[in-house]
């Protein structure tokens, strides 16, 4: 499938540039020849069916798995194959799809570790501010993380990453397990707000419609390759594309909700948050 892109739309200066990038597990490539940009202050969504390689791509970008070829630039500096901790020190904040909190530690400890690179008073101040943003976390602060509900876990994971105020958020399905309202709020409110402070967001989402609504740009990923790159609004508007790539065609693997029905119908029951 040839990559179709819309050249007319002007994009901001690139914060993250991924070029001709290949990655996988062991020596077997799962994603290959990936070209992808995230501009300053942009929210960029990657959507695609289960198993397309979205998580694999994110893991390789943040250095959890080694790359097999190609390059990554962060604000112009080549950062290909830097280790995760180096990338974090350069301003990337990553929330994995699973294993996203320190299971054996409390919520408070999770957040403190999130602020590991900060001086203590600074960390305390940010923690207080983040708890104001997510008041639902306050009563849970002494709870061991593996005793949290799925939605609470995700919030802790996001809160932890916010501690360092990264300049690029890499979020792998941040709304999975969140209640409808919270998912909506997270995407429309927090994600947009993060972007408005000048930070960039790279987002993988199953709730394609909701994600596209808050994104500036979108990439459609199918079978390990980017098969479409366009403004998010355009992908959202194109019923047939949304239908084909996010719905019926890949019905074999339980897939994202089709564009037409909206996200709500397939959301899990709201956890108590």
């Amino acid at each position: 499938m040839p990559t179709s892109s819309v050249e007319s739309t002007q994009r901001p200066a690139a914060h993250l540039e991924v070029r001709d990038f290949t990655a996988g597990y062991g020596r077997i490539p799962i994603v290959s020849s990936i070209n992808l940009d995230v501009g300053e202050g942009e929210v960029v969504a990657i959507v695609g069916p289960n198993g397309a390689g979205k998580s694999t791509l994110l893991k390789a970008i943040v250095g959890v798995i080694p790359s097999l070829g190609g390059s990554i630039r962060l604000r112009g500096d080549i950062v290909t194959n830097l280790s995760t901790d180096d990338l974090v020190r350069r301003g990337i904040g990553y929330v994995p799809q699973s294993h996203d909190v320190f299971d054996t530690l409390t919520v408070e400890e999770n957040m403190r570790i999130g602020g590991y690179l900060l001086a203590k008073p600074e960390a305390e101040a940010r923690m207080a501010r983040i708890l104001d943003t997510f008041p639902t976390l306050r009563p849970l602060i002494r709870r061991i993380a593996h005793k949290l509900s799925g939605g609470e876990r995700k919030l802790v994971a996001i809160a932890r990453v916010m501690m360092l105020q990264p300049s690029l958020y890499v979020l792998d399905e941040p709304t999975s397990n969140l209640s409808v309202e919270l998912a909506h709020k997270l995407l429309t409110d927090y994600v947009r707000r993060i972007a408005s402070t000048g930070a960039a967001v790279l987002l993988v989402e199953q709730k394609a419609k909701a994600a596209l609504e808050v994104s500036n740009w979108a990439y459609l990923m199918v079978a390990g390759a980017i098969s479409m790159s366009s403004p998010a609004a355009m992908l959202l508007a194109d019923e047939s594309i949304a239908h084909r790539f996010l719905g019926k065609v890949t019905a074999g693997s339980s897939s994202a909700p089709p564009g037409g029905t909206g996200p709500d119908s397939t959301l899990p029951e709201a956890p108590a948050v």
Partner: protein
Amino acid sequence: MSSAFQFYVTTLLIYAGVDILAAWGLNLQFGTAGLLSFAFIVFQAAGAYTAGVLALGPQTDNGGYQHYIGGYALPFPIPILAAMAVGAVIAVPIGLIALRRLRSDYQAVALLVVSIIASSIATNETELFNGAAGISLVPHPLADQFGGDLLTYQWFYVGFTAAVCLVAYLIVHRVTHSPLGRAFRAMRDNEQAASALAKDITGLRLLAFAIGGALGALSGAILVLFIGTWAPSAWLYPETFVLLAAIIVGGTNNSLGTVVGVLLVPIGFAEGSRFLPEIGHPGLIDAGQWIAIGLMLLIFLWFRPQGILPERKHRYANDGRLVTVLDELAGWLRRSLALIQRSSR
């Protein structure tokens, strides 16, 4: 050949046979079924004690200088068969303690502890098997048929050990090439898939443990009836490690590889150098052997973890299709389980 040399050779051959039997038993547990059986030497010990006290006459013999249970002076081959039965039976409690769903390294440690407890009990409960001194003067089976011709008897025992090895090989071959063997390997390679195929994974583990245990006990019985003595110092837990080293060096889950490993590791230096003159302080040669075994293991695990003779992949020339299907099934199950796990997170 001088008769001294013949004694040397026959003794070595019998030790080799005993170690091969034991290593096959351990290989069935470790190589085929993937159980890190650090208590293996306990099976050998159980076999040796059982055969010993059944072959010995009553405690009061020889002035009653040793204490042990049993003492029925049972004729050959009953002590050997009983030893095998005991080896298989004690596998059950040992397996139930150690083989429940623990991490593989926990299992190893739990079994190590079992080995040490067993040895400590045998040492301290002197009424059982004469404590630290161990049992001795175990009669040689059928020795009266040879009318005191010790050399001929040595050769006879070599032949007997070889015959037992042959039978054991046929049994091991039969087991590993049966559906049961396949289930063992499936369990070793992927426990989740195996538990989907054969529901009772604990039963499968216990079975592997019992068959291997019977072989280990057999080796102990043959050894004790030959050397006539058996004491706790003969089965300290590092002995298991020697057999493990033989298996890893020779080739895990390859019966022939195990033979090669035994000839190299325990026979090559542990037994072989018993006949060397002592140099330096007492224990120096021993220490050197252990260092060499440790180094050899590290070297093999690094450069050739599959061993000298690797596990054969195409072992079913005539029904190879069946295995592929099974492997595919296991792979498919693995993938779908991973998918289910991921989506349930």
